[in-house]
């Protein structure tokens, strides 16, 4: 009994690390630029396909391709902010919502056209390896993904709290108008926020590749989870998103264990509905938008 629960919690925690990378990106963009990036999941998908092709064509380990996906997606984020999102920033919600939504549809369907709906997998030496600790089973690939995800989150925390640019981003997130008055260049801060958020999504893609299949719709799985985690962790709150993602991972895993194999998503929706009904401002405190 105890072992089953512990096993489910561990499984959930490990995948929760990946959810955290995606949700931190969503909440960072929301906090700083005040838009919701509907396409965040598609950047996970792009990260996965980059890792897949690097592994398939050149035999590069998906974990090493992190050093390719993160810079590539960072640049994509800067370009998307500079050429697309910058043009729709304003008081009106509609263009912002539907621009990133259109981007999501476009990337998803381009992937469908270019790569077909087939599942692509990469098999690494550690894909099937696992640690056995006191009767518990810890898959190596997932553990690596979790550790790297937490390390990246920690680096982001350091960046936000110790560098000038990071402090500028936090300032912009807390009060954009005052931050602008203090001489912070909004577009530069926004470009970096988009870049970092997309780089994290790309990292999630590379980390997933050793144990998860790439297919055009894969991003949808993660983005929905991220949206719920971001509401649960209070919009714009990076630490809240991280903790909420881990909780979501555990809740999903317990749902799969005790309700049924296909109920992971139902648990996620139930959590969203409960959050909205009882604590729409999220667990991180503060005001809902």
């Amino acid at each position, binding site marked *: 009994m105890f072992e089953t629960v512990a096993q489910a919690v561990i499984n959930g925690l490990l995948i929760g690390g990946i959810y955290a990378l995606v949700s931190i990106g969503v909440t960072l963009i929301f906090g700083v630029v005040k*838009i*919701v990036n*509907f396409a965040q999941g598609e950047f996970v998908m792009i990260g996965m396909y980059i890792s897949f092709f690097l592994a398939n064509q050149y035999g590069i380990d998906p974990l090493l391709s992190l050093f390719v996906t993160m810079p590539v997606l960072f640049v994509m984020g800067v370009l998307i902010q500079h050429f*697309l999102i910058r*043009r*729709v920033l304003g008081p*009106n*919600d*509609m*263009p*912002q*919502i*539907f*621009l990133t*939504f*259109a*981007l999501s*549809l*476009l990337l*998803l*369907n*381009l*992937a*469908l*056209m270019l790569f*077909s*709906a087939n599942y692509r997998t990469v098999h690494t030496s550690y894909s099937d390896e696992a640690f056995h600790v006191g009767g518990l089973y810890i898959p190596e690939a997932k553990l690596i993904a979790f550790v790297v995800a937490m390390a990246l989150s920690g680096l982001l925390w350091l960046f936000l709290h110790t560098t000038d640019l990071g402090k500028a981003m936090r300032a912009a997130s807390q009060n954009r108008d005052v931050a602008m008055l203090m001489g912070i260049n909004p577009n530069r801060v926004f470009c970096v926020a988009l870049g970092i958020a997309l780089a994290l999504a790309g990292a999630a893609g590379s980390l997933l590749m050793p144990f998860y299949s790439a297919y*055009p719709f894969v991003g949808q799985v993660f983005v*929905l989870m991220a*949206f*719920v985690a971001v*509401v649960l962790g209070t*919009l714009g709150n990076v630490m809240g998103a991280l903790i909420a993602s881990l909780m979501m991972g555990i809740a999903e895993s317990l749902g799969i264990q005790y309700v049924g194999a*296909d*109920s992971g*998503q*139902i648990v996620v*929706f139930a959590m*969203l*509905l409960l959050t*909205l*009904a009882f604590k*729409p401002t999220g667990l991180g405190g503060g005001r*809902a*938008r």
Partner: protein
Amino acid sequence: MTQTINPRHAILMAIGIAILIGLPMVVKSSFAIDIFVRILLFAFIGTAWNLMGGYAKQLSLGHAAYFGLGAYTSTLLEINYNVSPWLGMVAGGVVAALASLPIGWLCFRLRGPYFTIATIATAQALMLIFLKFRDFAWGAEGTTIPNLGAAPLMMQFENKDSYYYVVLGLLLISLLITWLIERSWIGNYLVAIGEDEDAAEAIGVNAPKMKRDIYMISAFLTALAGTFYTQYIYFIDPATAFSFNISIEAALVAIVGGIGTLWGPLIGTVLLETTSTLLQSWLGSSIGGIQLTVYSLILMAVILWRPTGLMGMIGEFRQRYAGRAPARA
């Protein structure tokens, strides 16, 4: 805002309706009629979406929830209790309108993009419920609607023309409702909420009640489309009835055509569906994803360059070339 009806508009309207009624008598190809039915159906759904999404700017991407509820209500009533889908259609509308109350209660707690996400989640959650409960509504496999041949009382017809007239009727009803709302104080209140909800409340608009009511109307109409579509294709399953693509297309046609305008959804649907048909006939339907790729490019182009959509373009065109076109509020 004038309360009288411009006679020129009335004549144009009458001609337009006459053409739409006469269309199936001239065009005999059932392939073409099928496309017309699709256009009218999505124009209808888009018009229903536009009431809430366009005027009150509550950008839902979860209208498939009501499409699906309408489809399932009428089908369950027909197969289990032999109730005519005509009655089932109204029942489905009522179920959807009632369902919009708790769904709206939850989703309206969030504003802007997070409202949109919450609507996506509710539609997906409903789909999952219908997927899981197989003894109640056939689960993932869905079911076929028993073919009774020519049975107009059971909303089954032998020729496609009749379906065309049914969906044309639905579209005209939704346009009439939109027109009436647009002309009345309700329309003004909705637009005020869409412009700035806090400011609207400050001047005495009961925003939560207005949003709830318009969401009910929008849900009711969307559910009618669900029943019609199921009767038209003789099949229902959760993946079709609660398809995310329906939510997307409802919003897409309204935005491309002109958000918050009477004719926007219809014009948008004509453009998008025609494009999609041409693409399919040129490239074949072998390439997956091509339709939505093109749709998303059109959507991005509209948002970046013409946020007022085709209706806005038509307005500019008239101002420039028709000259001295009197400015109308």
